[in-house]
């Protein structure tokens, strides 16, 4: 690890540091092995996820989605060096709000950006795999919507997989931000508009919702 690296987060799967890197400030994401996993499974899984994460981050960026830029992939140490994005998580932004009406237009704008980002990502056939409001950032100072943590992402053309992505986010919204149904509905509306092949995805999502009842 870089000498002046500062540990900022000890996550479930990785340690996240901020460190100076090649004249810039970088996020260093080091995946560690899990003692509960069989060593063979652990090694394969960790390596596969590092590679997949780097690829998906880049694939998204090329298709116009704002994601952290990859600077370096250290495969031997399961570490990715990437752009440090200054900004706030959508989760924190929503938490700071009270229920009052003044947040409505702000949230509409945010929902629009989120819907657009998801559409861009799915057009590129990237499935994020862990969409939560903590993995969406509002970039300072531009307010650009940045999608982060592609640790569970993969490439797929299947509408089912894209629907699961949306479904996972919907549940994250419902379980951590009560009364966020309207916001999620407008996210879907933008998604539908911006992603011309979204029909089958939305159908799958609705099927999923019906199965719940």
């Amino acid at each position, binding site marked *: 690890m870089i000498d002046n690296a500062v540990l900022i987060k000890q*996550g*479930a*799967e990785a340690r996240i540091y901020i460190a100076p890197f090649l004249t810039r400030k970088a996020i260093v994401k080091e995946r560690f092995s*899990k*003692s*509960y*996993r*069989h060593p*063979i*499974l652990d090694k*394969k*899984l960790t390596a596969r996820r590092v590679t997949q994460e780097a690829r998906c981050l880049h694939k998204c960026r090329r298709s116009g989605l704002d994601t952290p830029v990859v600077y370096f992939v250290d495969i031997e140490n399961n570490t990715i060096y990437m752009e440090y994005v200054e900004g706030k998580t959508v989760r924190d932004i929503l938490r700071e709000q009270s229920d009052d009406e003044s947040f409505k237009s702000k949230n509409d704008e945010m929902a629009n950006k989120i819907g657009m980002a998801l559409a861009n990502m799915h057009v590129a056939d990237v*499935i994020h*795999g*862990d*969409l*939560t409001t*903590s993995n969406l950032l509002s970039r300072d100072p531009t307010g650009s919507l940045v999608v982060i943590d592609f640790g*569970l992402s993969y490439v797929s053309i299947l509408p089912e*997989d894209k629907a*699961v*992505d949306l479904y*996972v986010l919907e*549940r*994250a919204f*419902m*379980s*951590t931000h*009560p009364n966020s149904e309207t916001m999620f509905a407008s996210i879907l509306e933008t998604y539908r508009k911006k992603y011309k092949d979204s029909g089958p995805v939305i159908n799958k999502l609705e099927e999923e919702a019906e199965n*719940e*009842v």
Partner: protein
Amino acid sequence: MRHIAIGLEGSANKLGIGIVTHDDVTGKVEILSNIRHTHITPPGTGFLPRDTAAHHREHVLPVLENALKEANITIKDINVICFTKGPGMGAPLASVAIVARTLSLLWDKPLVGVNHCIGHIEMGREITGAKNPVVLYVSGGNTQVIAYAEKRYRIFGETLDIAVGNCLDRFARVLNLSNDPSPGYSIEQAAKSGKTFIELPYTVKGMDVSFSGILSYIEMIAQDQLASGECTPEDLCFSLQETIFAMLVETTERAMAHIGSNEVLIVGGVGCNLRLQEMMAQMAEQRGGKVFATDERFCIDNGIMIAHAGLLAFRTGFTTSLEESFCTQRFRTDEVYVSWRD
């Protein structure tokens, strides 16, 4: 004041009746009886709804008698009759619910319909003392990662297809392992002598998991490689457990990280599996947390948990009218309003 509830459970192949008391003043919960009778089928076969319902009908009266006798109470001591409303298999559920309804009319006692999963969660919390854990609910019919927030047990992750217990049960059938006491137990024992790890698909999507692809894959391997001696049934059981339990532990940990909790409670029949408990403990230890699990008396479906969860609801004023006392095969954990928690 002392409240007494009797609970009847029969959503799958276990028929269980239990009697529990809650003491208002001391807050103490006491189990007076916990009787169970299991419908066990021959190796290579699973349990069918019709036969399981017949089993429950055949044994429900003796089990009830035993439960009352062991609890050493009279009918007039009982405050409420609790039964499993769902989720589960339709015919077995109905076969037990009809008994609950009959008792309610016969003894003139109120009814409380209980969500099976809530029963597991509340029993697990009571037995282990876990305060606000992330709950992994794993059984033959369910696989959910759950956490409590604002009067609901919210589902953070779940299976996108079959339940983990179903995956294990069906593979036990492929290998012709014994269903006594349970196919999952047979797999657990076989796995202990597995030596070679065989790589299987690993399917985690966020906090959700999927098992059907793994099952088809390992069934294929079993067909191709067992006869030729390339691997042993033990290797397959071992690899299957290592893979699917790793998936469960991973999603549980992700939920813990998401809500910032360090406690995890494992409930449901698959929760008895010591390897799963061990892996979960290793995960919890790595993050400075703690794992709570119960033994087979409470992990495996039982009447006590239904009585206990039903009584919690009953004490907040909840009852189920006769008209509303139908069973439902689909009954989501998060549909229940948890009036008894802050």
